[in-house]
C-alpha cells in the first residue's frame, strides 16, 4: 500500500533522486560531449539538493558545548562546534565520549540531547526505522537512525512532552551548506575544464559527437570504424 503522505512529505528527496537519474541518464544516453557535461551538472546539482536537505534538522539546535568540553578546550571548542555544527540530534547514544553523547549519564546537563532521546521514543520514530533510511520524513530525519537508548528511558518519558514540542523546531545546520559550497566550486571547475576540453576536441576532430570521435580514432588506428573490420585486423 502506498502511503501518499509518506511520499509527499519527502518531496525534496524525490527531487534529488529524479534529478540524479536524469543527470546520469543524460550522461549515459547523449553522444554529444556538451550534453554530457550538462547531464553531469544536473547530476551534481541533485547532490547539492540532497546536502541542503539534510542540513535541515528537526529537533536540532545549534551545538552548545558541554561544560566538560568547555573546560578542556575553552573557546576553541565552541568555535569548533560552530564550524561543524550539529546535524542530527545525537544518534551516537552509545558513544559516551563524543559531543553527541547520549545523556543517560547526566541528562540534566544536556537538554538538547535529551530532546533527541525523547524523540526516539515516539512511535513515528520507531516505525520506519530500518526500512526507509532515504525516505525518512524531514521531521524525523534522524529518528530512524536511533536505537532506543537503553538507560535513558525514564528520563525520556519524563521529558516526553518537551520532546514533542522540540521535534517541531526546525533547525538549519550550516555545515552541509558549507560543504556544498565547496562542492559547487569543484563542480564549476569541472564544468569549465570539461567545456574547455570539448572546445579543444572540436578543434582537433571537428566534431563533438561521441560516435564520430570513436570512428575517427578507430579509422586512424585500424583503418576502419569499430566492428567493421574485426576479421581483417586479426590477419
Amino acid at each position, binding site marked *: 500500500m502506498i502511503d501518499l503522505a509518506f511520499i509527499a512529505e519527502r518531496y525534496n528527496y524525490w527531487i534529488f533522486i529524479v534529478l*540524479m537519474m536524469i543527470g*546520469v541518464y543524460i*550522461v549515459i544516453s547523449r553522444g554529444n*560531449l556538451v550534453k*554530457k*557535461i550538462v547531464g*553531469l551538472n544536473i*547530476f*551534481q546539482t541533485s*547532490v547539492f539538493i*540532497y*546536502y541542503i536537505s*539534510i542540513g535541515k534538522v528537526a529537533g536540532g539546535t545549534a551545538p552548545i558545548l558541554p561544560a566538560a568540553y568547555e573546560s578542556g578546550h575553552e573557546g*576553541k*571548542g565552541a*568555535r*569548533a*562546534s560552530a*564550524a*561543524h555544527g*550539529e*546535524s*542530527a540530534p*545525537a*544518534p*551516537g547514544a*552509545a*558513544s559516551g565520549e*563524543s*559531543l*553527541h553523547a547520549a545523556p543517560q549519564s547526566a541528562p540534566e546537563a544536556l537538554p538538547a540531547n535529551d530532546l533527541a532521546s525523547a524523540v526516539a521514543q515516539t512511535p513515528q520514530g520507531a516505525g520506519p*526505522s*530500518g*526500512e*526507509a*533510511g*532515504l525516505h*525518512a520524513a524531514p521531521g524525523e*530525519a534522524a529518528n*530512524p*537512525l536511533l*536505537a532506543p537508548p537503553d538507560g535513558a528511558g525514564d528520563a525520556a518519558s519524563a521529558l516526553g512532552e518537551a520532546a514533542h514540542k522540540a521535534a517541531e523546531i526546525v533547525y538549519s545546520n550550516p555545515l*552541509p551548506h558549507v*560543504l556544498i559550497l*565547496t*562542492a559547487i566550486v*569543484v*563542480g564549476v*571547475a*569541472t564544468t569549465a*575544464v*570539461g567545456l574547455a*576540453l*570539448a572546445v*579543444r*576536441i572540436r578543434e*582537433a*576532430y571537428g566534431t563533438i559527437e561521441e560516435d564520430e*570521435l570513436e570512428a575517427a*580514432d578507430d579509422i586512424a588506428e585500424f583503418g576502419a570504424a569499430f566492428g567493421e573490420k574485426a576479421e581483417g585486423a586479426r590477419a
Partner: protein
Amino acid sequence: MNLMAQLPVLPVVIPFVAGALALLLPKGRAPWAWATFVSWLSFLASALLLREVAATGPVSYHLGDWPPPWGIEYRIDLANAIVLALVSGIAAAVAPFAYESVRAEIDERQSPYFYAAFLICVSGLLGVTATGDAFNIFVFLEISSLSTYALVAMGGRQDRRALTAAFTYLVMGTLGATFFVIGVGLLYHATGTLNLADLHLKLAGQHNRVVEAGFAFILVGIGLKLAMFPMHLWLPNAYAYAPSAVSAFLAATATKVAVYVLVRFFYSVFGLDFAFLGDALTYVLLPLGVAGMFVASLIAVFQHDVKRMLAYSSVGQIGYMLLGLSFGTREGLAAALIHLVNHGLMKGALFLAVACVVYRLGDHRCAAFSGLARRMPVTTWAFVLSGLSLIGVPGTVGFVSKWYLLEASFAAGHAWAAFMIVASSLIAVLYVGRVVELMLLREPPEQGPLSEPVKEAPLSMLIPMWALVAANLYFGLRTEFTAGFAEQAAAALMTVSGGR
C-alpha cells in the same frame, strides 16, 4: 613554530602552495627546477613522517588547531604514511625525469602550467592520503583529479586522442567523485560527523538503509576512481595518451591512492562488524578483482601500444589488490597494501622506460620497441627488470607482492585464489614477454621514421628511471620498509575494524 610539529601537513601544503607559485615562474627550466625541488622536499617530509610514525605510532594533526571531530584532522598512521611516501617518492623520481620528456612532448609555453598542475596533483593525492576527514577526501580527490584532467589533456599536442581521453576521464571521474560525495553525505546524514575515526565510532551498531546506501555509493565512487574492473574504461586511454611523465606518475600513484581510500573506508570507517562489508568483499570485490585480473591482462596481451598495454596491466594489477582486500583478513589486507606500494614502484619504472623510448623515437607502439636492446640498452634493461618485477620473478618487488597474496589466499582458505593469482601472473608473462622478446631478439625496424639511428636517453632520464628500478630490486630483497610496515599497518587496521 616547530617545523617538526607541522610535519603531517607539510607534504600536502608544500606542493599545494608551490603549485600556485609555479604559475608565476617564467617559461623554461625554472618551473621544472622548482617542481623538482618541491617534490623532493615533500618526499623528505613524507619520509620523515614515515619514520616518525613507524617509531612512535599514529600522528594526529589538527588543521587550524581545531580538535577533531569538529576540525579537520590529518591523521597519519602507518597505512597512509606508506602511501604518502610512495606518492611523494614517485613524484620525486618523476619530477627530475620530466624535464627532457616534457620539453619534448609539451609546448614550452605551457611548462609553468604543467608543473603547477603536476604539483597540485601531487598535493591533491597526498591530501587524500593524509586527511582524516571524509569530505576533505572528496575535495582533495577533486583537486588531484582536476589537475590530472589538465595534465592528461596536455598530451593532446602529441596525440589528439589525449583530449578525448581527458574528457572521458573527466566525466567518469566526476561521476565517481559525485557518487563518493553522496555516500559521504549519507554517512553524515546518519552520524553527523565527517571525521573518519569519529565516523567509525558513530557507525558502530548502525544497521540501516542510510548507512548501507552510503556504503554502496562510496564503494562505487571509489571503485570508479581506482578503475575497478567494469568501471576501468577511462584508464587505458588516459594513461596511454597522457604525456609520458604524467603517465608514469599517475599509473604509480592515482589509483593507488584510491585503493588506499577504499581500504580506509572499509576498515577504518565501516569495519567488519557490518555484514554488508563482508558481503561486498565476497560478492563485489572478489569477483570483480578476479575478473579484472584476467580480462584486463588478456586485453593487455593483444595491445599494439605498449603504454596502453601497461595501462591495462594496471587494471589487472588493481584486481590483485582488490582480491587481497576481499579476503577480509589481516594477511589479505597486508598483501593488498604491499602490492599497492610495489605496483607503484614497478609501474612507475616501466612507464618511465617507455617515456625514454618516446623521447628518442617519438612512439610508444610495439614497433618502436623492436630491436631496442641494440639502440637503447640501458632503457631496455630497465624495462626488462621492471617487467620481471611485474611478472613476479623472485628478487623483485613483484615477487614479494605475489608471495604475500599467495600466503593470504592460503591463510584465508581460498587455495583456488592462489591459482587465480599465478594464472594471471602467467598472462603477465605473455604481455611482458612479448615486448621483451621484441626488444631483445628482433632487429630494429629497417625503414620508416623509426629506423633512424638513436642514442640512449639522456642521463637526467636514466637516473630517475634506474632509481625506481633499483627500488624494485632493493625492496624485492629487503622488505622491512614495504612488507614490514604494511603488515603492521594491516594489523592496526584490522584491530580497528574488528577483524582478526
